[in-house]
Each structure stands twice: as C-alpha cells, then as structure tokens.
C-alpha cells in the first residue's frame, strides 16, 4: 500500500478539510501501517536474536564477517538521508520546487548508497563463506537485513516516483503532504536500521 502513496493527494493542507482526528486519512493510514511494520521487524529481530548464537564452534559467525567501520559509514549515510528528507519536506512546504527536487534526489541517492553498501557487504560475506543457507546465523542475518534493504529500496522507488511527478509539474506545494507521508516511511526505515545496526552489529556477539 505504500507504493501507491504518491497518488494520494493532500486534501488537507489548508486545514479546511475536516476529518474527525484532524489528521488526513493518508497520513493516519501511514502511521497505522508503520505500527504494523514495527511488529514485522520485531518478529524478524527476535528471530535473529534467537538464532544468532546457534552455530557450531567452527561455523562462520558474526565475528568472522562483520566489518563494523564499513557498516558504520553506510549507517551514517542512511541517517543523513533522513536529514535530507526533512529538507525535501520543508522545501516543498515553502514552495521551493527546485530545492525539493534536489533534496529528493539527494535522499534517494543516499538511500541507494546504503543499499549498494549492503549489496557489497552481502557479496563480501558470501565470499568469506557465509551464505543464506550456511547456518542459522546466516539465514537469520540475511533475512533481517535483506528485509530492511527491501524496505529501503521501496522507499527509493517512491522517492524517484515523487521526483518524476515533480518533473512533470504534478508535485506542487498542495501536495506537500504526500512528500511528508513518504518522509514518514523513510524516517521509519532509518529508525529501524538504528535498532538493527545496534542489535546485529554492535551488541557483543
């Protein structure tokens, strides 16, 4: 349902359109959806924590593959994309369409950098002997981070769709809320990564 969010029009930006809560339907729907997403990642993170230690002494484990400085940098890149997302929202609210396009592009590019880092990381881990089917740690690690990467990718697609809309002149200040709603999703995905990064990479193995 998130993928169709760009189609939603901000009926409510001028505050004249009444809903019972005062929030627009689209924004409320995104909040509700993100509530559900919390449980999805909750389940995956629990599965990871439950399984990460279940490997034999000679198996490839977290300590053998993790490159924390590298992942820290890519995490930093992803967190910065939240900042640029904020700029994208604020620029369109001000009516600065050019700024909006720049920040949308920057956000998508930072997100893409993160995903590229993840692809690199997966390739590197694989070459070090950790495949999806190697052991429980491998299955749980790739499932969790892969799900997150898929979420980031969907976010990038939505940002690019916004950009195309903007190029075609269909993304003006009256649709600032659309950008804001996609921003909510983007920030959520970033916040989840903070949790995942902490639990997967930083917790003592």
């Amino acid at each position, binding site marked *: 349902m998130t993928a169709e969010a760009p189609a939603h029009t901000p*009926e409510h930006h001028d505050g004249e359109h009444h809903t019972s809560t005062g929030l627009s339907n689209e924004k409320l729907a995104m909040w509700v959806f993100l509530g559900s997403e919390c449980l999805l990642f909750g389940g995956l993170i629990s599965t990871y924590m439950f399984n990460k230690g279940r490997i034999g002494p000679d198996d490839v484990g977290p300590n053998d593959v993790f490159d924390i400085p590298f992942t820290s940098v890519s995490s930093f890149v992803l967190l910065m994309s939240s900042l640029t997302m904020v700029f994208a929202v604020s620029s369109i609210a001000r009516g600065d369409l050019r700024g909006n396009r720049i920040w949308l592009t920057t956000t998508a590019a930072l997100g893409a950098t993160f995903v590229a880092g993840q692809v690199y990381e997966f390739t590197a881990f694989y070459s070090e002997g950790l495949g999806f089917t190697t052991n429980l740690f491998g299955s749980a690690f790739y499932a969790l981070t892969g799900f997150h990467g898929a979420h980031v990718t969907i976010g990038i697609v939505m940002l690019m769709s916004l950009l195309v809309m903007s190029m075609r002149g269909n993304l003006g200040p009256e649709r600032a809320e659309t950008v804001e709603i996609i921003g909510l999703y983007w920030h959520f995905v970033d916040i989840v990564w903070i949790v995942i990064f902490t639990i997967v990479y930083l917790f003592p193995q």
Partner: protein
Amino acid sequence: MTVTDRTITAPEETLALPAGPAIAHRPLGIFTRPQGSEGWRSWLFTVDHKRIGIMYGAAALFFFLVGGAEALFIRLQLATPNGSVIGAGTYNGVFTMHGVTMVFLVIMPMAAAFANYLLPLQVGARDVAFPRLNAFSFWCFLAGGLLLTSSILVGGWFQNAPDGGWFAYAPNTGLLFSPSKGIDFYAVGLQILGIASLVSAINLIVTVLNMRTPGMSFFRMPVLTWMLLITQFLLLFALPVITVALFLLMFDRLWDANFFNVEAGADPLLWQHLFWIFGHPEVYILILPAFGIVSEIIPTFSRKPLFGYHFMVASGIAIGFMGWGVWAHHMFTSGVGPLSVAAFSVSTMFIAVPTGVKILNWLATMYRGRLRFTTPMLYAVGVVSMFTIGGLSGVTHAIAPSDTQQTDTYYIVAHFHYVIFGGALLGLFGGFYYWWPKAFGYKLSEAWGKASFWVMLIGFNFTFGPMHILGLQGMSRRIATYRADEGFALWNMVATIGAFVIAVGVAMFFWNVYVSTRNWRRAGRPDVGPDPWDARGLEWMTASPVPEHNFDEDIQVDRLDHFWHRKYGKDESGRVVRAAPTSEIAHDGSNTNVHLPSPSYWPIVLGGGILLVGYGIIYNLWLAAAGLVFLIGAIYGWILEPADDPDAAGHHDDHHDDDDGDDHGDPDGNGGPSGNGESASAETEEPETEEAATVG
C-alpha cells in the same frame, strides 16, 4: 475527537481556490475509469463498500461450503472404527484444509463483510477512507483464497493440500516430513490473505478514526463499530508476526534456509511462539465481530438499550490487550518451563473476566426486556449460551495440569468449536438475518430461519458435545482412524450424525435465501422500509437497500443510539412514547448530488497479479518475476489512473477516489478547494445550498 460543525461554513468561501502559487496542471491519468453501476462489470470494478461487503459475504459462504464438505469427509471417516472412507494422507489434507478454510476463508471474510458493509454506515460516513484499497483487499483475499483452495485440486485430489494442521508446526512442516507442495500453498496463501487483511485493517481503522459524522464521538459509536475496530487493530499487529513466521517457513522450504532445521541447531519452539503470538489474538479476531453483532441484536429485540455500554466497550478493549498475553497457553506441554506455564495460566484465567462481563451484560440487557424471538435474536441467544459453554471449557485449559491431559485430544476440538462455531459463526449467521433487509431490501423468511436455526443448533450440540467426552476418554485429535476396542465408536457416530444435521441446517439457510428472494420478487419487490426491526444504529436511518451514497446528508449525532432517540422520547409521566415516525427521520436516498468514488479496473488487476506471483513462488520463480513486473505495472496504473473522468455518467463525477468519503452532499467536501489541482480547477458543480445538517 469530534469535529466542529462544518456545515455552517459558507459554500462560496470554501469553493474558493486555495491560496499559494498556481501549479501548472497536467493530469496524471493515462487510462479511463470504468463506468456504470449495472451488470457484472460494475461488480468487478466497484469500489462501493457495500458491494465489496456483499462480495466478501458471498465468497465466505462459498468457502463455507468447501470447508463444510471437508468437515463432512472428516466425520464420515471417523464415523466408525477403522474407517476407510479416505486414506490417512488425504485425511491430513482434509482436516488441515478444513481448519484453514474455516478460519481464514470463512469466519474472517464474513466478519470483513459486516465490517465493510456496516462500519461506514454506523459511523455515518459516505464510504471507507480508501475505496480503491478496499476493493483491492477483497480481490487480494479472493486471490489468496483461490490459491489456497486450488491446492485441493492441483496434481490430484488432495495430493498437494497443506497437511500440517492449521497451525503447521515447523519442523513437522519442513520438506522432510511434508514433501508435497501443500505447505508452500499454505505459506504463500496465508501471506496473500495477510496482505488483504492488513490493507483492510488500515483502511477500516482510518475510516473509524477519521470519518465519523459530526457528533459521533468514540463513546457514541455502536458496540459493533467498537468490536470491529478492536478486531482491525488486532489484525494490524498480529498479521505481521505470522507473516514473519510464514516467510521463514517459506525460505526454509524453497531456498534451504535453516530457521527450523533442527540439525543446524534450530529450536522448534520458534515457530510455536511466532504462530501463537499471532494465533491467540486471531482467536479474538474471530470472536469479537460476533460479540459486536450480538450486542446490536439483543438490545433491538429486547427493546432496551445495551446494559453497561461503557463496560461492554472497555471489556472489548481489555480483551484486545490481554489477548496478547496468553499465547503460551497453547504451548503448556511444549516445555516452555514452569514459570511461563504459571504466568500464562494466570493471564488466561484473567482474560475470562472481560468475556464474562460481556455475557452478563447481554443477560442484563435481556432481563425484563420486551423480548421478541426473531431469527436474529435466536442466533444471538444461541451465541450467548453456546459461547458460555465454550468459554467455560476454555477456562479448564487455563489450569495447566488439566490442560496437560487435554492437549491434542478431542476435548480441545470440542472447546474451539463451541467458541468458533457456537460463538463466531452463529453470531455471523444472526448478522446475516439481521442486516439482510438492510442490504437487499427484504427479510429472509422467519419460518425457515427459525427452523434452520434449531436444526443447526441441535446438530451442533450433537456434533461437538460428545467430543468433550471423547477427549476426556483420550481420543487424540488428527488421527485418521481408531480401533473398535478403544470405546470411541458410539460418540463418534453421534458426532457424525450431528454433523450431517448441521449440513441440513446450512442447506435450509441457503434454501431460505432462495425462497425469500423468489417470494419477494413475486410479490413485486415490496419495500421493507429503512428500519424493519425498529433498531438503534445509524445504518437503519437510510433506505433499504442502502443507496449508493449511503446518507442524503450528514447526520449530526447528539448521543449514543442517536436514531432511537430521534424515534422515541418520554412523555410527562416518563413513559417511552413515539416521538416521530421513522419515515420522517430516515433518509429516502433521493439525494443524487453526492460525490462518489469512480469504479476502478486496478484493484482486480492487482489481485490477479498477486495470484500470479503466488503460483510463481510455489512453482516457478520466472513466473513469479513476471507476476512481479505485472504487479508493479499495475501499481503504477493505479497511481496514474485519472482521478476525474469528465465522461463519467451519473453522479460519479468525482475526482480522487481515495478521498474522504464523509462528505455526502456537503459542499465543502471533496469537491471543495481542498481538492487536488484537477478537481479544483475542473469544478463545475453548483454549490449545494441545502443545509447539510438539518438533523438534530
């Protein structure tokens, strides 16, 4: 939480263009939108919550026949010792599909039928918050249901049906023990159904939170609205958990992951925890809609307000929260440890309290009421009594030592059929009788209805009552047969006869639908009137069947049971007297100036894409990839669909269909300035001068 009175806003003002820089407008649409509201096409492309509700109900009844036939096969096989009607392998598939069908394809969509049809009406809205998404939910549900049900047929009769029980314990459902495609169908099918329910839950939550008519504060909402809202929240939070579990199982089976590979060190308890964290809230997902329906029926036919409205709502909310803290009572014998067992024992006993509150409040509502035992009322009373039996046997499960004896016996089967059949299904059937005139404009026959009820109730008790005894005698569930010297023969035969009596009762329901429809048509389709039962909710305040736009104008709600209080007042001596005839209060559906969302091709197209992806994942990843491309294309088609179709006939001249639906006849609604660029600039409609809130 309540909105301010928007009807006093002058239309001239609200139709002004929004301030700010003008944006060059280019329509996003590349396709036209379907038109017309007649014929089968209009059903395929409809986004009307009422039609979607009816389609949910029809689909659920279809799957009910499938699941019922499976139940009869089970009973035939078990009727006599050493049964040989179906083989043991087929038997596994039959009981698994019976459970999965009844839970996911019957009770849940039947509840969704009522939720779709009634939630917008009960809160006084024009439609749900996202009509197209609503249609998508239905088609996605149907895709999942058909995929799951097709497993019975593909590759031979029950050769590829899921065979691991409805809770599909891994690693028993791993490739080693379950090598057919069955569990793949289970995992993929339930994920698709999960998407459908999740989208629907979001949609309905937003509808209830955001689209209540003026004055409809939370504690003026009918109990059914409350129960359905709580159900949607449970779905919202429970579904992602089983989605995770299903993903893990699917990864294990299809791509050799190790989540449930005990050889690699996996713990089988992982699946049980994930499944039951979903599974126990699921139990309340099944029963709460029926509780809501009963809470509507009993006050109407007792001619009394619901006793303890606030307690009813609060107990529903309490069930919603506590439902998350009892899951491990399904796992008392799995070795979760004494501390867990003790904690979950206590929490399970506690959750009986809010449920008991509901039972007592229904009894208190009936106490000294002027009872009318119509068919819906019979079903409601049936729920109260049968659910109490099931609830009490449920409390015996909370006592862990006792549960240890009962686990995996027919005692459990008896228990959950008393709550799910005797509770949820009877309630939903009562709902069919109760709201049938609202949806179709005529009542079902009372005579056939009552007969069908009694046959069903008696058959039900003959089927599942003896299972308590069988369970305590030690008969295991899920066994394909038993020996003659085990002493199970008598009660099994009784249960089998009972099952066929139920089948007769169900057949009588369908016959009733046929006969009542025929008689109504022969009689020249007489109008049943907006309020045939003299009821209380807002849904009775508009014509039957409900016109496409629901209400002619916004209703200004001033208290709980608003409609009732419009109809009845008290005279000087405090006696309840009729204040106004229903015909004066109810809307006649004559306002044709209401903006309605246009129908759309894309929901059903998206559903088809999901079906393709589903089969692709099971059989061929290239097919899945093709389906995914198709799906993404359809999503963009959906986005680019024109919001405003200048050629649209009738009053389908709306703009964006994901707009709010609460603006029936209200000029500052979706035709107003707050609309998107295209509708604001293309606005040609005259501002309506009627006062939208003449009510109150």
